[in-house]
């Protein structure tokens, strides 16, 4: 449990520092994900396609898109994070890695935090990077696009963190995907409200500092509380198997 053992030659079975363990889990998840590149691309493609549906389904008018654009992008990002959550623990659950993680001497919630961080780097961050392109396609102005990216940058980690609770709870269940969405969507609502609210305020020329600070508060709250809930849920799901 101690975090002062830095020497690299110690056998793996012995307790290594929590930070090192987190780093190992994080890098391992990245490496595993890059061996299955198509899986990385799918949520992004989904994001683009959902955004495409709105001009086709509702209206391609510039005035409508300008007004609804930030909401469309946020909802699409939210849905693609939601879809990617199923993968968060699934592979590790299937091949037994998750049980090993639970058995580690390091606190499970830290390892979960590392896994969620990796998940965000693999799905949330690319969404943020892609958002400006789609923002231009829905005719948002430059300032709004900047604010939108900022809110997504703060908001998508919250989505991943809260979503991890749902992913852990539904692990190993039949039709886990739909159930996961059912459990998690209500919890996503505050993030969505403030995410789009911030962009709307920026569009009106209002100062956005306060909104951004509130979203930052959500992030802090999610980072501090959600990993505990996810870890508890993981233990329950594993004891079920």
């Amino acid at each position, binding site marked *: 449990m101690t975090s002062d053992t830095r020497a690299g030659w110690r056998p793996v079975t012995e307790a290594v520092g929590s930070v090192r363990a987190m780093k190992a889990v994080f890098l391992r998840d990245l490496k595993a994900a890059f061996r299955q590149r198509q899986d990385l691309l799918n949520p992004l493609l989904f994001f683009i396609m959902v955004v495409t549906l709105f001009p086709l389904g509702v209206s391609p008018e510039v005035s409508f898109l300008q007004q609804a654009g930030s909401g469309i992008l946020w909802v699409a990002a939210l849905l693609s994070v939601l879809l990617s959550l199923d993968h968060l623990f699934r592979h590790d659950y299937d091949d037994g890695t998750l049980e090993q993680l639970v058995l580690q001497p390091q606190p499970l919630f830290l390892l979960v935090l590392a896994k969620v961080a990796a998940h965000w780097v693999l799905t949330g961050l690319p969404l943020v990077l892609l958002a400006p392109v789609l923002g231009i396609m829905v005719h948002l102005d430059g300032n709004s696009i900047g604010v939108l990216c900022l809110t997504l940058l703060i908001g998508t980690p919250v989505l991943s963190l809260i979503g991890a609770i749902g992913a852990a709870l539904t692990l190993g269940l*039949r039709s886990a995907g739909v159930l996961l969405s059912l459990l998690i969507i209500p919890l996503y609502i505050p993030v969505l409200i403030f995410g789009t609210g911030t962009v709307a305020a920026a569009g009106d020329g209002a100062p956005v500092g306060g909104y951004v600070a509130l979203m930052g508060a959500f992030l802090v709250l999610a980072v501090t509380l959600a990993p505990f809930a996810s870890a508890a849920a993981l233990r329950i799901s594993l004891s079920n198997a």
Partner: protein
Amino acid sequence: MWQFFHKLGSPKWFFGIANRLMPWLLWGGAALLFAGLIWGLAFAPQDYLQGNSYRIIFIHVPSAFLAQSVYIMMAVAAVVTLVWRMKLADVFVKSVAPVGAVLTFLALFTGAVWGKPTWGTWWIWDARLTSMLILLFLYFGVIALGAAISDEKSSARAVAVLVLVGVVNIPIIKYSVEWWNTLHQPATFKLTEKPSMPAEMWVPLLLSVLGLYLIFGWFACLRMQTEILIRERRTRWVKELVLAGRS
């Protein structure tokens, strides 16, 4: 005190207590609710602005009140489940979650019926309506997760975690939705302030709120008894109970 607490963990003991408690809850609740509703619907004065249509408040407010407090009760039971692994707490959560969902729906439905003459529309994306709708979603999530996990113990704990996550989120959801849009009138009863309506209106309202609480208690006991019988069907006392009931 602790002995009582331990006894509370025993389904058999609860079953007996519930049997003795239920008539009081049922008749007390029915009397209060009856009095409150008759008074409210027939004798309370008209509202100067809304006329008679405001009378739906005597159903709307009690169900909305209870819909929210049932979730809080579930959260308390969830803590008990996770900390003390008490079976009865989980029986409570599983039994009342559908009741809470129905009450939430009732609050939304009566609200819609009330909104039509008052606001001129069935539904408005207003803060309190929306947060009740989200509460309904949370109830659905709890029910769905409970139904999806077949193992009794993990189902109990998973649902408890979900209920707790939900209860942490409820204030956040409530305030963000409120910030987002507000049209609904503020809450009728506040603990710290004197009600703004005349006594002929709020006394029957209070009676129906209390009555519905008691009726809820009765119904919760009934559902919990049923759930206990299903879960404990292999134990001797249940078999004896069933045989005694048959003869």
